[in-house]
Each structure stands twice: as structure tokens, then as C-alpha cells.
């Protein structure tokens, strides 16, 4: 098994217009996703939803603090999962089921145990 981080990128206008029911529906989609992960013989070992990118602060290389995310793009990083999966094919199949517009799948750099 190997760990993959699923970075979820979406347009953020959802949060400007979403009502309570939209949020409940969204939560249900994530529950269904986690169910699919377990059914595939993989597991969710971590993850968080993030506040909108307008709340981000970035410390640049020269220690300059700026208001906003590192890369100001139309679709912003909105949350992530850490998934333990047998291989990339399984991870990619799960990423297709992940409730997000775009999912970047990155393998975790596993350091050898001391």
C-alpha cells in the first residue's frame, strides 16, 4: 500500500451561493466517497476541508507576507484527502469518484524508517 494526497481544486463561487441544503448534499457526497474508498480496499488516513482562498496568507521566499494564496488561480485548493491505496490505478479510479472539480493525485514521499 502507498499513501496518496488528493488535492481538490474547485471554483469557489459555490460557497458564495450555497444554502444549508447544498452544504448537506456536499457532505453526503464526501461520505459516499469515503465509502467508495473503503469498498475499493483502500482507506482514508487523513484529510481536511479548507477555508476559502481569500482567507489565505502566503509567506514568500524573502519572508514577505502577502494576502491570498500562493497561486491565485480561478480554481483554488479547497481541501485534501490522504488515501492509502495499493497502486496508482486504484488511486486514480478513486480520484474520479472524489467530489471535486479537479483532483491532483500526489504520492507521498515515504522516508525509510530509522
Amino acid at each position, binding site marked *: 500500500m*502507498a499513501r496518496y494526497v488528493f488535492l481538490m481544486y474547485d471554483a469557489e463561487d459555490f460557497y458564495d451561493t450555497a444554502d444549508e441544503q447544498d452544504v448537506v448534499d456536499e457532505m453526503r457526497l464526501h461520505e459516499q466517497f469515503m465509502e467508495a474508498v473503503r469498498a475499493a480496499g483502500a482507506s482514508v488516513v487523513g484529510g481536511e476541508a479548507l477555508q476559502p482562498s481569500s482567507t489565505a496568507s502566503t509567506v514568500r521566499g524573502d519572508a514577505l507576507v502577502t494576502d491570498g494564496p500562493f497561486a491565485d488561480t480561478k480554481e483554488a485548493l479547497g481541501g485534501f484527502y490522504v488515501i492509502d491505496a*495499493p*497502486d*496508482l*490505478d486504484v488511486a*486514480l479510479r478513486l480520484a474520479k469518484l472524489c467530489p471535486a472539480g479537479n483532483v491532483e*493525485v500526489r*504520492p507521498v*514521499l515515504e522516508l*525509510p524508517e530509522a
Partner: protein
Amino acid sequence: MTGLEQVFRDAWAAVVASTARLTRDLDLAEDCAQEAVERALRTWPQGMPDNPAGWLTTTAHRVALDRLRREATLRRKLPLLVEPPGDRDEPVDALRLVFTCCHPALVRESQVALTLRLLCGMDVTAIAAVLLTGEAGVARRITRAKQKIAAARIPFRVPPDDELAARLDAVLTVVHLVHTAGHVGSRADLQDTDLTGRATGLARMLVRLLPDEPEPQALLGLILLTEARGPARTDAEGDLVLLAHQDRSRWDRALIRQGLARTTAALRHPRRGRFALQAAVAGLHAVAPTWADTDWAQIVTTYDALMRTWPSPVVALNRAAARSRLPGADLAAVLREIDDLALDGYPYLPAARADLLARLGRAEEAAAAYAEALALTTNPVERRYLALRVVSRGHP
């Protein structure tokens, strides 16, 4: 090419693939396959083994086991993900390697580079010529792709049935790209026969490994039908001869027969795909006694079907060119259709426009379109043809 080179070439993919299953490391598998070839070159002159491919595999395995024992403590690299470890299973190993090289998580150029390196055993210089890029760039690309295969755990596995068709399409696309890169080569001649030969070999291997799939048959049919025209594509001076003017008696009838048989089988299959339709067009040209007697209506119908299966601007361009050959065709309408296509930088678009403009008697515009095609073309034989058309303002 000598007989020995052909033996090495035919066996290479299976030797690398089978050794990769053992070593779980693509670099090491390649090194061991290379070592086996070098040992063969030293020892075979004293007597050929009964089964040369088997000899190469066994030798590569032996080299691998030696190296693995010696370097066990030094190895920190991530292993290639092989499952199941299984017994000796060479044909499936080669197929595993095919699907690993053409994995959708790798960008197309990397798929092509890995395929040419690992399945065909081509060196970086030759691959750089195919990808029209520098050797250092190709070497970096191959190294990064191998690192990704290990780090992201791209499995060394044949995809399950429900994914096979989509994954196979990527594989066939890569093989078709290799053939196209050889059909109009990057060197002095019109055709790079080494490369077209590699593509034919890959297509034959896929047919052998996936005998129940129609699309590998179709791709092989398409390649054979295209190869059949090879001798007629240039004249005695080495100048380009378009299909319309080719001496059809110089077409290779044996290749046409084989290509038609593959194509017909693929067309009859319930899961007929885009390569079957492309091969069908090539087949319709192959059976036409002359350019004038070509069944253009059937070709247009086939392109219509292809546009439904696989809509792409290149198909639309070819369909438009075929439509312009129908009796009473409205050439100006065809020209408008072509002008709407999004094919920036594709030299055959201005070439097709130029042909239509010349037929419409708009000589100055035809010359300008030929000049546009010339600026986008690198093959010297095609350049010579286009340069002449610029000067003659479209007249043959």
C-alpha cells in the same frame, strides 16, 4: 539489417519485460537485456541456440540475479510494482510492459519515448529524431517517466476488462504515432523505414498478445496498407509522387492482401473502432484501379462514420478533401469548411487549401497556401515538392 539484428529486435520487448518482472526495476532490466545481447554477439558465432529468444531471456535473468545478489545492500530505489509475481509468463510480461509504458498518467511524449526505449530498444539519439527534440531532453524525459512509474506506483499489469478498451486506445495511438513519424521521416528520405518497421513490429506484437481485440488488427491493417504504397511514393529521382499520380503497379500486392484481410476482420467485429475505419479508407484506396475510379462516395461515408466515432479536425480535413473528389463537388464550399478547422501548425491543412485553390483557378492564393505549407514542413522531399508548387503557382 542482419539476421541477428532482427532476432534481437523481435525478442527485445519480451526479454526486457520478463526481466523487469524479476528485477522490479526497469533500468536494471534494460541493462541486463543489453548484457544478454552482448553475450549473444560473443557466443552465437560459435553456434546458434535452438531458441534464441529463450536464450536471451534466460541469460538476462541470470545476469539480473547475479547483479541483484551483489548489489542487494546498495539498492534503495523504489521497486516496480509487479503483481502477481507469478511464474514465467513472457507473453503477458510484454503486454504488462506495453501498458506501463503507455499509462495515461504519463504525458504522450513520454509514452512514445518509453515505448521506443523499452519495447523497441532504440537509443536516445534515434528517439530524439522521432520526437523532434534534443537528446538531453529525451534522456531527462525517460528518466523522469521511470521515476514516476516507481514513485507513483504505476503498476506493471494488464488493465482489467472494463478499462482495457480505453487503455488500449492509448497504446495504439502511440504505435500509430511511431508509424506516422516514420511515414514522413525527419531525415533526408521521404520515409524512415527503420521507424515504420518498428511500428509494424509493435502492431504485430499487439495482435499476437491480444488476439481477441479488433483494434490491434485494424491498426496492423492500416499500417500494412500504407506500407504497400511505399515504393510508389517517390519517383526514380526521389521526388514526391502524390497518391493521385502514383504508379499503382509498384504497390506491394502481398502487403495489400495481408492488410485487407486484417482490415476486413476488424470491420466485421462488433466492437469495431476508429482504426478499423481508418484502415477501411486505406483499403478503398488500395483496391481502386486508378485515382479516377476510386470509390469516393464510400470513402466519404467511411469518414462520416469515423467522425461519429472519433471526431477530430484531422478527420474532418480528410473528409473534406474526399468530398472535393465527388462528382459535381462544390469546391468553394469545401474550402470554406476547411478554413473553419482548428489545425494551427498542421502543414497538410494549407496543402489541402492550396490544392482546392489551384483547382478553382485561384493561382496566386494557391501559391501563397503552398508557401504556408512549406514553412510548416521539415521533410526535405516534401519541401522540394511544395517549393516547386509555390513557383509554379499550384500547377503540377
